[in-house]
């Protein structure tokens, strides 16, 4: 027993009624759109390949698959379908098909419209949901991109000294943490400007700021791109040299820095003269903390200062070495 043909078409637009021999007696209007040739009279298994639960080659095998979820393919294409088969008691069967998740693809390929689906079918709802979700996700994604850009900018600002454009203490701490965690060898130079207070007092803060910016520029020019130059106090700077541990090279750098910082800076009509004292410490990847490294460099810096400024010295455990004035050879 089957329902009248029109009722079947309305309720199951993708059904096929099969004869005991497996020929299609009647096919739903949407199923017709999947084939270039008339389906009526054709052999169902020649039009559709059933590959799950197993490859099915005969009407008998198809009837055995009753109650199973069938996976099919439209022969000659990669269009996948889902289906169910029910025997009609006379050796024939009714197969009902659907597109499953491939519905988006199917709608495009066969130019389907709403009327090709039964109104109880959720396919249209699924298409709607996919479009709506795409819109919502686009909106979310564009927000995320803008937030990401804003975050990068904010981080950049948070790690920058606004006066000189150098890195600040926060950036330095992060950088040291990373080097120490990775057990990298590095050296740290603590640089303090000499006579800076006098510039401020004599020529004013604007001149002082100008001198600071000039000193910052010198430090950036004398260091490599990957070195970190930070302003950590009014006239105090720290430079971190990753993978540079040669005392000779560091001494040479210190001399250069001091000489260039000593070059007179003109501001308005005032000629400002400063110098610098430097303390250096070298870490060969041993266990240290950021604070202890900075402390060592500090110790060396104050040895330089005590010895009469415009000098550099290296930190040495127990027995601090004699600070070198920049004219001396190490």
């Amino acid at each position, binding site marked *: 027993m089957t329902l009248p043909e029109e009722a079947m078409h309305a309720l199951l637009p993708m059904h096929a009624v099969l004869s005991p021999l497996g020929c299609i007696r009647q096919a739903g209007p949407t199923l017709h759109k999947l084939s270039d040739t008339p389906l009526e009279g054709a052999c169902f298994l020649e039009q559709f390949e059933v590959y799950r639960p197993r490859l099915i080659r005969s009407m008998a095998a198809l009837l055995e698959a009753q109650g199973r979820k069938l996976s099919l393919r439209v022969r000659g294409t990669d269009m996948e379908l889902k289906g169910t088969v029910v025997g009609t008691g006379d050796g024939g069967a009714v197969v009902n098909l659907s597109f499953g998740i491939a519905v*988006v693809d199917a*709608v*495009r390929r066969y*130019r*389907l*419209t*709403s*009327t090709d689906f039964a109104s109880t079918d959720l396919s*249209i709802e699924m*298409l*709607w*949901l996919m*479009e*709506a*979700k*795409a*819109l*919502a996700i*686009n*909106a*979310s994604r564009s*927000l995320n991109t*803008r937030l990401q850009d804003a975050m990068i900018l904010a981080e950049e600002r948070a790690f920058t000294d606004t006066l000189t454009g150098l890195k600040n203490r926060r950036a330095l701490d992060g950088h040291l943490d990373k080097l120490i965690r990775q057990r990298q060898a590095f050296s740290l130079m603590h640089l303090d400007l000499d006579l800076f207070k006098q510039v401020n007092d004599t020529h004013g803060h604007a001149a002082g700021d100008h001198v600071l910016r000039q000193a910052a520029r010198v430090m950036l020019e004398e260091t490599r791109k990957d070195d970190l130059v930070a302003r950590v106090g009014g006239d105090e700077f720290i430079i971190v040299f990753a993978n540079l541990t040669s005392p000779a090279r560091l001494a040479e750098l210190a001399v250069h820095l001091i000489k260039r910082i000593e070059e007179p800076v003109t501001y308005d009509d005032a000629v400002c003269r400063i110098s610098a004292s430097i303390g250096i410490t070298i870490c060969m990847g041993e266990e240290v903390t950021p604070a202890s490294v900075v402390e060592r460099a500090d110790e060396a810096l104050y040895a330089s200062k005590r010895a009469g400024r415009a000098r550099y010295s290296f930190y040495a455990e127990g027995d601090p070495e004699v600070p070198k004035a920049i004219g001396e050879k190490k």
Partner: protein
Amino acid sequence: MHGLILRTFQVFVQDTYGPEAWLDISGRANLEIVDFEAMLIYPPETYDAVITASEDVMHKPRDVFLEDVGTYLVSHPNSEGLRRLLRFGGVDYIDFMHSLDDLPDRARLVVADLNLPSLEMHDDGQNQYRLLVGPGLPGFGHVMVGVLRAIADDYGALVLLDSRAETAAEVQVVEISLFETAFAEGREFDLAGRTPLRGGAG
């Protein structure tokens, strides 16, 4: 107030009257920011501030402004994505009208925190329909008038619309007289549209 709603006002003004007009409105409404984010939530009073500022800048009563927003949502190329979502509602205008009851739930399905007023469509027979717009978003009924009018063109239907407020219950009533479902050639609707890159409401 959901950013999606405020952003809709923004893109409507920008696309219809240009970026200057929106700068005027955002200034007059005393907004902290110029661009609304569709996926963020703003203080509730922003809604009224934007509408009031738009009335002033555009020299238009708010009812007309809101109705124009509704029209924009369906007919402007920049909101093609939303028009498509609405067209999924049915194969003809009658189907579409009946699909409106589901609209707030559908919206929530995709944007969980977007609360639209409830919509209830009543078929009074003889081609007379009434849409009851619930409270929550003052003036939303006018937006729906714009949507209903523009989507009628989209389907090629001929309708007459009238809206009135039932202030006591804060329910707005939109009366729809449907003269013909296929009066003119509507716009094409292909189920398999390309995924839109930019939604009008987004």
